[in-house]
């Protein structure tokens, strides 16, 4: 059985748990206390991931770090329908990759602000917030145009992709960093759609969708 090195309050770990749950994959969680013990920076964990970052996935003899890379692996190895990481169309594949990189920028900004406010990280919280708003405006506008084309997801197609999973956690947790989503209605509708994906699961700070209509 695969092992996920995990911290419950981490959005990057949550995105892996989310896809594992959606794909119905059984796994074992190995908790690493990111805060306050900073176990991810201790020797024992550095032997697993020299970057000292969570999450890490072990599947058989494969040890994989980086949440985006883990999403790529899980989707291409275990999603038999090939929807979550569509390999066949070069254009779609490139767009997914583009938004995976965008997700990293969301982590650097929105997650940074959350680390400052909640866990007393020594970063510039206001700069993180300003950058997150810049990214959220771009995402909101993109999703608004997608909706006009009757597209529900970040990447054009009939089903959500790992780009949606990658961007979701630190968007939905943004208020913990003092980043309101009040001005981003298309983002709010998109997060509600994600919450209705079969197999969706929550983490502390994330609530399930209300009853549908």
């Amino acid at each position: 059985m695969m092992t996920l090195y995990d911290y419950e309050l981490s959005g990057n770990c949550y995105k892996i748990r989310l896809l594992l749950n959606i794909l119905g994959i059984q796994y074992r969680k190995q908790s690493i206390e990111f805060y306050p013990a900073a176990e991810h920076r201790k020797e024992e964990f550095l032997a697993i991931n020299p970057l000292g970052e969570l999450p890490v996935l072990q599947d058989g003899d494969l040890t994989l770090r980086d949440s985006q890379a883990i999403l790529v692996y899980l989707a291409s190895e275990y999603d038999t329908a090939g929807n979550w990481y569509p390999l066949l169309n070069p254009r779609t594949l490139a767009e997914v990759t583009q938004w995976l990189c965008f997700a990293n920028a969301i982590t650097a900004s929105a997650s940074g602000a959350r680390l400052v406010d909640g866990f007393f990280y020594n970063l510039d919280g206001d700069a993180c917030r300003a950058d997150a708003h810049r990214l959220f405006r771009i995402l909101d506008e993109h999703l608004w145009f997608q909706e006009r084309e009757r597209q529900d997801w970040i990447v054009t197609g009939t089903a959500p992709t790992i780009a949606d999973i990658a961007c979701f956690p630190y968007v939905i947790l943004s208020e913990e960093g003092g980043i309101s989503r009040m001005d981003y209605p298309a983002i709010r509708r998109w997060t509600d759609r994600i919450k209705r994906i079969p197999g969706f699961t929550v983490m502390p700070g994330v609530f399930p969708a209300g009853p549908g209509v």
Partner: protein
Amino acid sequence: MSPVCNDPVALGLWHPLAAVEDIQPFTEQRTRLLGQAIRYSKNHENDITVLDGDRRLPVTLAYGYVWTCLGTPAAALFDLPEYAEPDRRNVCAATVGVRVSAPRAVENFLDMGHFPFVHTGILGVEPHTEVREYRVDLDEQRDEILATECIFYQPQAAAGASGGIMADYIYRVPHPYCSVLYKSCPTDESRLDVIALFLQPVDEENVRAHALVSVIDTQSSDLDIRLFQQTIFGQDKPILENQLPKRLPLDPRAETPIRADKAAIVYRRWLRAKGLQYGVIPAAA
């Protein structure tokens, strides 16, 4: 920067700053208390200094945490005798920043009604949503609030629980910004687990929330106990941060309580009687 506090009640209280074990030795830490920037450091084992500018502040080490006072302490810190019981696991669960006033956070801690909706599958689950009648008394001699005969169905009452129980709860509010909860211990029927919430008012609308878990549990690791409490905390966070107004209104007409809020009603009345002003909207005279 928020204005510095001029509330004599808040200035005379002991306030928590950090878990002793979390303080890196020989590294000065900065934090804020009642709007005031202060510093603390640990020279060697548990020798802790707290400074407001050049002024050395009084220090008390209790229940795993460092406590200080910006004014002259009006009284000793409240008693928590269970902490000293030899077979208890005392675990400082985490210090977390929350955008909420300290009194709002205390009220949420006292509220059983939110368990099934916020801590779903752990501290409560639908359809077990009823908050049964419970007692609330003000112990005048100890100057603290006591809520007793609280009972609630909990699917996973603690880190060491396996299966649901009807959990008995007792709440103490021995300090305007602290509350202590005693609940059925899932692994020993004759004892009560203790969970204490110590709030450091960073300013009127922000806290650092410090949690102490003191349990009878020979099975769970410290890490399990901490992570369990961090999960609960993480679930409360968005609820706390979305409460408006941020400061707790003490005017009895400001917010409409229901029967389950009995402890909150007595808490607000107690704060009014103390004349506490920091983190609250005082009732009109």
